[in-house]
């Protein structure tokens, strides 16, 4: 049988040839934090929240092929501090008013902030961009103030729905996600698209209308433990 072994934080992991570090870790029930990667979607390697040290070198676990015999560090204070800084900058780059957000409690960005202990007084200024809300579509709304440009909707729409409704426009700090038309109502987006399904957008940007706040406090994702705390159970399934 072809395959290789490496270790993450002292735990030996078996990997198949061609697997990424994250895929092998997931199969073994070891959680590596992530935002732009999503099961079933092509890897993008954009957010860098999954950064691990592989033989001392920083790599994105979601795109890096599993390295034979390597020593990988994942949950160290130093790496988690860098991850926290990345997540904090995402909060500062958009307008994240969790108390009024329908994704609150079911949001991966917020859950990552909880996991990474993001409670210290902030050191970055808030960018407070003025971004549009697109509520033109009868079933879907977009509040781009919360978009973290993870590209998950882009890949889902292109690769799974075969539609290409979402895409990046602009460059540098101005790069953002836009729809392929004057607004969402003028695209062929439908509520059944995988790209707008509840799990694809990690934050509260793609909103399915008329379902917000349907899960009460106490029953939301974050009320069942830290994000990633079910990694072992998922791997055993």
């Amino acid at each position: 049988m072809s395959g290789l072994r490496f270790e993450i934080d002292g735990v030996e992991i078996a990997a198949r040839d061609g697997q990424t570090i994250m895929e092998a870790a997931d199969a073994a029930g070891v959680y590596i934090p992530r935002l732009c990667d999503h099961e079933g979607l092509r890897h993008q390697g954009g957010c860098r929240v999954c950064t691990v040290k592989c033989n001392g070198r920083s790599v994105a676990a979601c795109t890096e092929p599993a390295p034979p015999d390597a020593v990988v560090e994942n949950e160290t204070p130093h790496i988690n501090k860098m991850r926290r800084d990345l997540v904090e900058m995402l909060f500062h780059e958009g307008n994240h008013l969790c108390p009024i957000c329908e994704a609150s409690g079911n949001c991966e960005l917020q859950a990552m902030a909880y996991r990474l202990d993001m409670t210290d007084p902030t050191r970055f200024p808030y960018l407070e961009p003025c971004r549009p809300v697109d509520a033109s579509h009868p079933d879907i709304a977009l509040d781009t103030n919360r978009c973290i440009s993870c590209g998950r909707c882009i890949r889902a729409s292109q690769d799974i729905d075969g539609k290409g409704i979402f895409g990046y426009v602009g460059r540098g700090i101005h790069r953002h996600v836009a729809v392929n038309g004057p607004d969402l109502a003028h695209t062929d987006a439908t509520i059944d698209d995988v790209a707008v399904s509840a799990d694809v957008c990690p934050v509260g940007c793609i909103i399915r209308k008329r379902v917000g706040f349907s899960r009460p406090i106490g029953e939301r994702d974050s009320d069942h433990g830290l994000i990633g705390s079910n990694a072992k159970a998922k791997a055993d399934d």
Partner: protein
Amino acid sequence: MTEPRKARVATASLAGCFGCHMAILDMDEHLIDLMQRVEIHRSPLTDIKSFRHRCDIGIIEGGCCNEENVHVLRDFRRNCDVLIALGQCAIMGGLPAMRNAVMHSDAPLRECLEEAYITGRDIRNVTHNIPNDPALPLLLDKVYPCSEVVEIDVQIPGCAPTGDVIFNALSKLLDGKFDGFERESIRFD
């Protein structure tokens, strides 16, 4: 031997909804434990309006939306050893900060006030004016998080934080052992 002096705590509500002060009361019976160790000085709970003593802990609810908020916050920083931002409004502006980024507007404050007092639907404002009495504190261009105005030592997240989170943080601070929160107890809402 004399009893150790109780720690002095001051609190203030700036641009907040008083929900975080309600959350302080939400400590319920823990308040009895806490009051063995602290006395409340300047606070809406005591109606003491200015500092007569230096305080060990200052607790701020709400960010800064007007010049009076800035004045009070600076006064707290000058008079308190440890300054706590309590709740999302104090930490990042919270709900009042929604006025900072009014969509498509170059003058969000003006647009917000005009909609609230003049152009909004169902408004009955006989003067057709935006309130401008000289007694009103001047509004700031934006709502600022406390940490953009003064140095903040501790943030207690939540909207509002639960009584338990507040009690645990204060108890540990009083013990000199505060080292952050249990991750499972953190909430931003």
